[in-house]
């Protein structure tokens, strides 16, 4: 843990980084409302990237157009050089982008373990017939998927509740389970929508550690939305700020923190 600061600087200074996700003038309109307006930014492999902005700024909508929930009205979204704008969500997930949801969307009446297995199922190899006839390939694969899921639960510190119903978990654990489930799909890029919302300071601290581990130990690229400024500023190496769908600032936490436009956007919101 002591070397995280070192790694941070290393990552930001790494000039030879390869882009993994690139938004180019991504725009989406809902009727008359332009929820995301020509937003462009680039994530490099191994980034720990923050997306912030006041309520209703369009952050979640950015996630939605990246993951195929909505098709952008215009603009491109390049993932590993391939334009993924308008692909179906399942296709995006198969390509290697997975996400969590701001308003937790677990499979409530499934067990914690099963939730994670659903994530891992994406990489399945056996066919449906094998399962319906209960042939050994499907049975073995099931065992393997469950094992892998169990390992992930250990990492996310959820192993002790593996058999509980997901809906019965306390809030903080549900959020961690969402991350575990997303990790199970084996993504290259993971999008976290307000992962710390509703957590107490200790839980937040543990979460920050986990997110760093995801990046460092599992080699994922992380893009996260968060309202807790301290959390974001401590965790993320680069940040983009949205307001009313428009990108108003971008850069390192220090640059963003001192950008008058950002301060105004947040203050303006408070005075409203």
């Amino acid at each position: 843990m002591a070397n995280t600061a070192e790694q941070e600087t290393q990552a930001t200074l790494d000039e030879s980084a390869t882009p993994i996700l690139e938004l180019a003038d991504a725009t989406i309109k809902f009727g008359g409302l332009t929820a995301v307006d020509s937003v462009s930014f680039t994530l490099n492999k191994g980034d720990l990237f923050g997306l912030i902005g006041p309520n209703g700024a369009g952050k979640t909508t950015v996630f939605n157009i990246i993951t195929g929930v909505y098709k952008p009205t215009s603009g491109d979204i390049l993932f590993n050089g391939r334009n993924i704008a308008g692909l179906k969500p399942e296709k995006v997930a198969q390509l290697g982008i997975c996400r969590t949801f701001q308003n937790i969307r677990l499979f409530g009446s499934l067990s914690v373990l099963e939730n994670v297995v659903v994530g891992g199922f994406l990489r399945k190899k056996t066919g449906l017939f094998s399962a319906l006839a209960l042939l050994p390939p499907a049975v073995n694969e099931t065992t393997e998927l469950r094992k892998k899921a169990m390992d992930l639960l250990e990492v996310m510190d959820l192993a002790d509740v593996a058999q509980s119903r997901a809906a019965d978990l306390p809030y903080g654990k549900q959020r961690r389970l969402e991350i575990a489930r997303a990790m199970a799909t084996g993504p290259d890029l993971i999008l976290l929508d307000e992962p710390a919302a509703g957590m107490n300071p200790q839980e937040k601290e543990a979460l920050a550690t986990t997110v760093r581990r995801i990046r460092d130990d599992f080699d994922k690229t992380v893009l996260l939305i968060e309202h807790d400024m301290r959390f974001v500023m401590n965790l993320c190496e680069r940040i983009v700020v949205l307001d009313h769908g428009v990108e108003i600032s971008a850069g390192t936490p220090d640059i963003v923190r001192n950008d008058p436009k950002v301060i105004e956007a947040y203050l303006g919101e408070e005075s409203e």
Partner: protein
Amino acid sequence: MNPAVEIQKPSLLKFWGSRVISAIAAIAFCAGIQSLGGPLADNEFLYRIIVLSGLYVTLAVSLNLINGITGQFSIGHAAFYQVGAYTAGYLTVRMFSTQQIGEVPWLILMCLVGAAAAAITGLIVGLPSLRLKGDYLAIVTLGFGEIIRIIAINIDEVGGAYGLSIVPKIQSPWLIWALAILCIAVCRNLLKTAHGLPFLAVREDEVASSAMGVSTTKIKVTAFVIGSSFAGAAGALLAHYEAFITPDMFKMEVSFIVLTMVVIGGTGSITGSTVAALALFLLPEWLRGLKEANGDALVVSAPQLLGATLAIIAYIALARRVRDHYHGKPIQKAGFQFGVAAASLVLFFLFKAVFAQIGGLAGHEGWEINSLRMAIFAAVLIVIMLLRPQGVFGHHEFSWAWLKSLFVKKKQEAS
């Protein structure tokens, strides 16, 4: 609270051993059903309903796959049943005599044909489910069912409204139950492997499923196709067992009965669907049988009916209060529920006596229990929804471990 689970590969011996045992048990069961015809020769009616209950098990379990497991609220299952019955029946009428194959192989072939025809229908009905959810899908499936029935009424080739008589009559009790067991096994296998999870995931949350890489389209259509093909095969067997089918045998009523079975059993629970199918099919038929056996109809009088209605209302009100406002140990809660049930029973006799005293009502000669059947179904459906919306079995399944735990606990309590 729960210990971390150890996940192990099942040992080969255990895996194949249990499968061989299950297969033997299934064969023995089917053989048992078949040979039951001997001892029950003088009670044809009883034998008949035992055999036909197998069809309802198939229908309920296959609808449960669509409805309970995948969460696609389809309420037109009779349509698939009908498509299977008509396709297979028509082919038999047309082609059987020119075939050189035995009756049972032909029947199996017809099951496959009926299943295929129903699967195609299921595919067509499944397609709207890609764009529709919940209540809209329900209405559309209901509508499809009606359209198919109206079409059958208007095709003279298959007998129109009068129906189609199928020669030869091929009655194969063991095959009917083999289909039911196959249907249960397929659904159970699906849920035993990871392949079943995407189906459950689609039921729980479609948006999250697709974000996890589940193709919701594929899953929903698969569920519709598998579920409807079993109903189609059941239809084929029905057609040949009865040797006469009419569009009226596939009315919306049938769909509602099957739906009731699934809902009461517990949406998603194969065990629940099976048990509910047996109970809800056998009970009314048995009551109807009483009449035929004794030559005497089982009659419910007006005071009894009114008394029962009021007692049920009282029961719902009381049981809800206990459920919502009394927080105690499960055993105490169960005790309270039991008390409420007993109290309602007392109320029933009280109401009945009161209504019997009111002139006029007592004079009514009452209704045959069978004419009450659908009304009772409906009442049970409402009671279950109000008191236990997840159904009797909830999402739970029968398992040996569960059975064992029941006995072990009992022993501990006894000692």
